[in-house]
């Protein structure tokens, strides 16, 4: 009761401080409280003192009212401070421990603050600070965890995505409750980032349960992310619904997920003639590539045959696209029915190529047979290669070349195609690029292909550097000399590529060549062209492949240089050295 009166007194004094102290004289509400305090004052003297202070205030003239109001307020607040409640009743539930295993490495507050400001402010240069902080392991400090989670909302999307993809996954499942809480409260793209991160951290069963829950979300991106997360079985029903969503992004994600569901085979087959034929054919091809019984593939091939017959009989070009979807879908099956179908369609090449474009179709017969040749080139069947070689045209050898590389011996490939290298530059480069890059879907990965050594002689004779670098072997003396000459010339803008080729070929003296190059760079004058080649060289250079001694030697040379390009050498090498030391310490 007394404390209540005291609190009431504090409220009245606050009111008078806002209204002005002269109003305290004879204040009715304050006067009412004095007897209560006087009564308690008989037991505790401090209340009597307060009552006295209030009486003085109530009687004070305007001139003294301020000091009396200050005195009374000070007194009341001091007593209330000693009466502050702090207890809380109820059952105490222990906190759950997070299995984070964060570092307790002491980090200077000024360093942490810089990262914290980068996470919570706006302006340029923030991402660099964060990337550097992540690389230095500062995000293993507990104190950055909550700001790091909030940075998922950052307006600078690169920063938010870096947090989502690089930083936050390192915390593991411990951040799931925080993500879930924030996800439930927020909208917008940050919500999608949270969802993607959650899907990455949840177990398969949890992930599927969450995705099923979110499959009906109003937010398109959330539905798409949920569809993408419904992989691993048990959610085909939901995926079928999502595959009919009005938004293309959602449908694409759903078909992507269905590519892992054997139960979805019929659904995907039925979807091929629809507007999502391309999505369905890609998914079906992935599914068939995982291995499906021949009768199933046979059934699908029969449906495709029906399309082929329809196209040929009715000469309707608008069925060509659907037929192409079938072919692409069955291309996933590298065994029987898929290949047979492909060959049957290829046998009708002449008839199909003449079909004109229909009004609604976006491909005509000519385009169709181009796509058909692509499929023949990559199917790896000898009969398909034979078909392509029958129509070999050295002006456009691409598909025949790809098919031959897959199915014929290296000598045959050289004998058949080397003449292309004597043709116009465009044709020559096309073939050269195919061999060099191997990026073309048509060719198997680099290491899986054996090349006839005559290609290397031809490349050197024609000064086709990229081809020569790609095929370079340490046992080929003239080729090594050729590459070494280029690598030793710092003015040559491809010297970096030559050096890398020598390294990849296992050339023993390549590190001394690197030293020479760096030393030459130190004294040389650099054109813009050389500068750009250095940039490219640095980006692709595998510093991690250098031995400790090679790294130290190369660094010793580079450290003596001046200029921006050289500084990058030293930076990259020193970074590598730091990375090694850190990883050694860590292990």
């Amino acid at each position, binding site marked *: 009761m007394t404390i209540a009166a005291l609190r009431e007194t504090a409220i009245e004094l606050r009111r008078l401080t806002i209204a002005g102290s002269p109003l305290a004289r004879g204040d009715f509400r304050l006067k009412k409280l004095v007897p209560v305090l006087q009564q308690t004052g008989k037991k505790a003297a401090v209340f009597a003192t307060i009552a006295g202070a209030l009486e003085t205030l109530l009687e004070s003239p305007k001139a003294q009212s*301020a*000091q009396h109001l200050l005195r009374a307020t000070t007194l009341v*607040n001091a007593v209330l401070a000693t009466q502050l409640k*702090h207890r*809380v009743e109820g059952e*105490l539930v222990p906190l759950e421990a997070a299995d984070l295993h964060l570092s307790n490495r*002491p980090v*200077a*507050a*000024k360093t942490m603050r810089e990262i914290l400001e980068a996470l919570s402010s706006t302006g340029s240069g923030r991402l660099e600070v964060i990337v550097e902080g992540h690389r230095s392991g500062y995000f293993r400090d507990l104190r950055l965890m909550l700001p790091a989670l909030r940075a998922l909302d950052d307006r600078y999307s690169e920063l938010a995505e870096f947090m989502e993809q690089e930083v936050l996954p390192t915390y593991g499942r411990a951040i799931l409750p925080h993500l879930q809480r924030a996800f439930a409260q927020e909208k917008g793209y940050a919500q999608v980032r949270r969802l993607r991160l959650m899907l990455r951290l949840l177990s398969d069963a949890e992930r599927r349960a969450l995705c099923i829950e979110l499959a009906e979300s109003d937010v398109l991106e959330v539905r798409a992310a949920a569809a993408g997360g419904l992989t691993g079985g048990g959610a085909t029903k939901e995926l079928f619904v999502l595959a009919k969503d009005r938004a293309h992004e959602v449908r694409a994600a759903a078909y992507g997920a269905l590519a892992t569901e054997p139960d979805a085979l019929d659904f995907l087959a039925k979807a091929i003639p629809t507007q999502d034929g391309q999505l369905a054919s890609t998914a079906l091809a992935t599914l068939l590539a995982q291995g499906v019984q021949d009768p199933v593939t046979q059934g699908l091939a029969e449906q495709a045959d029906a399309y082929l017959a329809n196209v040929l009989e009715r000469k309707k070009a608008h069925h060509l696209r659907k037929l192409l979807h079938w072919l692409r879908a069955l291309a996933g099956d590298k065994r029987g029915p898929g290949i047979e179908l492909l060959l049957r369609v290829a046998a009708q090449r002449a008839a199909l190529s003449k079909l004109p474009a229909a009004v609604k179709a976006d491909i005509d017969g000519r385009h169709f047979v181009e796509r058909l040749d692509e499929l023949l080139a990559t199917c790896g069947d000898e009969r398909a290669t034979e078909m392509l070689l029958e129509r070999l045209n050295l002006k456009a050898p691409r598909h025949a070349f790809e098919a031959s590389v897959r199915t014929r011996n290296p000598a045959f490939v050289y004998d058949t195609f080397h003449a292309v290298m004597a043709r116009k530059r465009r044709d020559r480069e096309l073939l050269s690029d195919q061999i060099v890059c191997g990026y073309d879907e048509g060719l198997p990965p680099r290491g899986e292909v054996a090349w006839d050594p005559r290609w290397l002689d031809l490349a050197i004779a024609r000064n086709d550097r990229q081809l020569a670098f790609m095929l370079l072997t340490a046992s080929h003396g003239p080729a090594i000399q050729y590459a070494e000459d280029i690598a030793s010339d710092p003015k040559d803008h491809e010297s970096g590529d030559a050096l890398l080729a020598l390294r990849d070929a296992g050339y023993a003296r390549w590190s001394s060549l690197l030293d020479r190059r760096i030393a030459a760079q130190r004294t040389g004058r650099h054109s813009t062209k050389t500068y750009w080649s250095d940039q490219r060289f640095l980006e692709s250079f595998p510093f991690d492949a250098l031995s400790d001694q090679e790294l130290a030697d190369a660094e010793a040379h580079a450290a003596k240089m001046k200029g921006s390009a050289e500084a990058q050498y030293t930076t990259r090498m020193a970074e590598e050295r730091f990375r090694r030391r850190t990883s050694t310490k860590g292990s």
Partner: protein
Amino acid sequence: MSIDEAFVDSAAPNAAALTKARKLARGGKLLARHQDADGTLIFGECAGSGKQAYRPSADFQDPSNPVYRCTCPSRQFPCKHTLALLYAFASGEAFTVADVPEDIAAKRAKQVARAENRKARAAKPKKVNKRALAKKIDAQLDGLATLETLLHDLMRSGLGAITAKTAAVLEKQAKQLGDAYLPGAQYAVRQLAGALGADENPEAAYDHAIAQLLRIATLCKRGVTYLEARKADPELTPDTRTPIAAWLGHAWQLSELRALELFEENAELVQLYFRAYDDLARRERVELGVWLNLKSGALQQTLNYRPHRAERFMKEASSFHHVRQTPCLYRYPGETLPRVRWDEASERPLDPRDLATLRSHALDLSAAIKAAKGRLKDPLYETAFALVRYDQLGRVGDATVLQSGDERIVLNDDAGCDPMETVALLELVDGALHRNQVALLAFRPQAGAHSLHAKPLTLISEAQIVRLAL
């Protein structure tokens, strides 16, 4: 000398220098790395923008007072080149043994001479011009009288009648208080102006303003009592029992504190909390450290003020993770959380015995709450710190609670002086820290709720100190 990354971090004048230094070290800009035979000097060469490489060095001849030198034109010490050198040393790079360069040897000799001169000057008793001091006290009394008049005017007009004009009057008054040798009172008036002009909930603004009015009233009352007592004393001795002199704005000199025997020999301190913030009323960057004195068990604070105008030319204080050792620890007047300073100091790594000592100085929660309430009833304080031992951290309903014996307190992020969210971090720390450990808590009353809550700042186990705030 033990140089690790934490040492380099704490030596850096600011975060930018540290980042640049790290880049220099990683970028292979250090062209030469040497140390002298007895390991007290590290020096080298660092490529810079000029033709000639810079020659940074770190001299630990006097470990308590390292000297950083560099031939670069930077006004920061240590500069980024010296920090890069230290960083390389801390990272375990190879440093070859070499003779001390001649120029550094000459500077070392001068340094020794300077240190001796300084000691001789410090030993001389400082003369006090009593007449000038008496005049200063009169000016301070006049300033306080004017401040009191302003305060009473504000109370009479009422906070509700305050306009933009009032803020201008307060600013003018603050300037006058600076002229009257009362920078502490000047700061309090600027804080009041800030509270009145704050763009927040008007009710909360009134609460802040009232707290500030009471603070100024108390400052005036105690200030007048103190100054009159000092004036009456023929020796004009300052008050050494309360922090009133510092509150009024007296900048204590170390020689004064020594003369008043406010020092402790061979002290060892462990920092438990650090915070750097901009104080708009002071117009300064403030760096606050809360330390535990291992010998006495008292919590003490360090305060580093850097005026905004000169901020980048002054060394930034930072968190400190070792044990700070000082032959002479100077203590400002005041019983609770007194400010401390030192002239020279060294450091040693924190070991488990230090942690055991730290933990042994922790209070029971009930004693800590009682002490906090006692401090918070004084209008001059708004936060109280205490090192508290606890049995368990847990939840009661939605509230996170710290329990010690039969006593409990609600942990709340609004309860402390720090904007970092620390309560949520309790769920993320190692589970072993949830039971039978020690915490540094900040206590603050919750406006309107008539309750006292605490904010956890640091947890201390037998194995580690876990800081929850920056």
